[in-house]
């Protein structure tokens, strides 16, 4: 029994399914996130699968600025993810609103709506940096699932 529980625990960081939500990004960050999945970076090496459904996701990758309309969507998606879960914000926009911080319909970074576990700076961050972000997220994931 203990062995099974251990296996489950160790499996957690080996099978992070991620969902990507574009929260009003300029696409720069999104295409770099997508690039992570493609042959050259192939994050499936780490068991990472891009799922389109919050109910199947462990990691939520969010890019872009939060505005009044998409903040509700963001909150919905986060709520529909089963625990344990982590959020990785990518790009200047996702981190703070970036260059658009002062634009009229911008609320700000992702952490204004949901708690963020890893911040990946860049505009857009390179795919390698996004992988780093997911790795950092996974560390938090491991901590959370122990708790």
């Amino acid at each position, binding site marked *: 029994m203990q062995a099974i529980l251990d296996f489950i625990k160790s499996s957690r960081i080996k099978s992070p399914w991620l*969902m990507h939500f*574009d929260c009003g990004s*300029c696409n720069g960050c999104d295409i770099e996130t997508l690039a992570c999945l493609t042959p050259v970076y192939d994050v499936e090496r780490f068991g990472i699968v891009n799922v389109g459904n919050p109910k199947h996701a462990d990691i939520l990758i969010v890019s872009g600025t939060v*505005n009044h309309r998409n903040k509700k969507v963001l909150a919905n998606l986060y709520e529909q993810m089963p625990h344990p879960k982590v959020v990785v914000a990518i790009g200047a926009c996702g981190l703070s609103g970036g260059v*658009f911080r002062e634009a009229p319909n911008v609320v700000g970074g992702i952490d204004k709506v949901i708690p963020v576990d890893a911040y990946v700076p860049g505009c857009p961050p390179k795919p390698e940096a996004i992988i780093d972000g997911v790795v950092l997220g996974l560390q938090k994931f491991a901590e959370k699932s122990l708790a």
Partner: protein
Amino acid sequence: MAQTILPFGPQHPVLPEPIHLKLTVEDEIVVDALPALGYVHRGLEKLCDIRDYNQMVQIVERVCGICSKIHAMCYCQGIEEMMGVEVPDRAKFLRVIWSELHRVHSHLLWLGLFADAFGFEALFYQFWKIREKVMDINEATTGNRVIVSVNQVGGVRRDLSAEQLRWIDAELKVVEAQVRALRATTLDDYTVKKRTKGIGVLSSAQAMELGAAGPTLRGSGVAQDMRQLKYAAFDRLDFQPISYPDGDSWSRCAVRYDETLQSIDLVRQAMARLPEGELSVKVKGKPEGEVVTRVEQPRGELLYYLKGNGTNNLDRCRIRTPTFANIPPLVVMLPGLELADVPVVVLSIDPCISCTER
């Protein structure tokens, strides 16, 4: 007959960007589609009030990361026209090289996403694999993969060395060969044709009436391309717009496939004819007046309306992006299709919501 009403987006795995369609289907046949926007709206045009006209270059680049270079170019051309600045020739050619490289990467990206829309995963991966070479060229020559920031009012910020030009040429050969190898699959495979031929038909009359732009327009047989306006160095390059007559998703795909190769060719032409000279000229004064400029984005005609008032800040910066023009045709194309065709047709206009909503 019983109807299913479902939200397609804002978060949907086939859409990298948030757009919402309220779909009404009967046995998976779409009977009604109503779009909802606003998930990406930032209001960035309004930033011209608090950022000077030079800073706006970086901001309009971020209208959309995929053709950032071309946005900046269009904007700079507008300001230059308003201020009467003549850009050095070398800068004009370099602008063409980078903008056509952007078109190559954008079209490859689209070809991949389009393949994904009809569930051809291996093809998706293949195109994205090829695309990485173009991204490497971007990164090596501009310092960034996606948002390259090479334009400035008055010229360009980076140069290409002779060695770099040779390297680009070699890399592009590989890219071209690999893209050509996928022609039969992209345009002639039975399963692909089944999913794209005759799906989402837009006649040329409809396309004109609904204001379609870019490959969506050219896929309906209207050979109109803003590069015919001969901005930048296009007056000194061989260029003929590509069009296909059928107006279906397949035609739009064929246009983009051919344009990928065409753009590689244009890069080569520009590299071959690249003149020596300055990269930029010093810009003096403050923009005043009105100007309308247009360039061809990977997704079609891009229009900037700029109005200066003699200060460092513009009075109005209005951006009409190609996807904005292609949304009405999309809404018209959807009814009567199968649900499975919705991603295909939505992707077939190469939607870019961040540019639509800015």
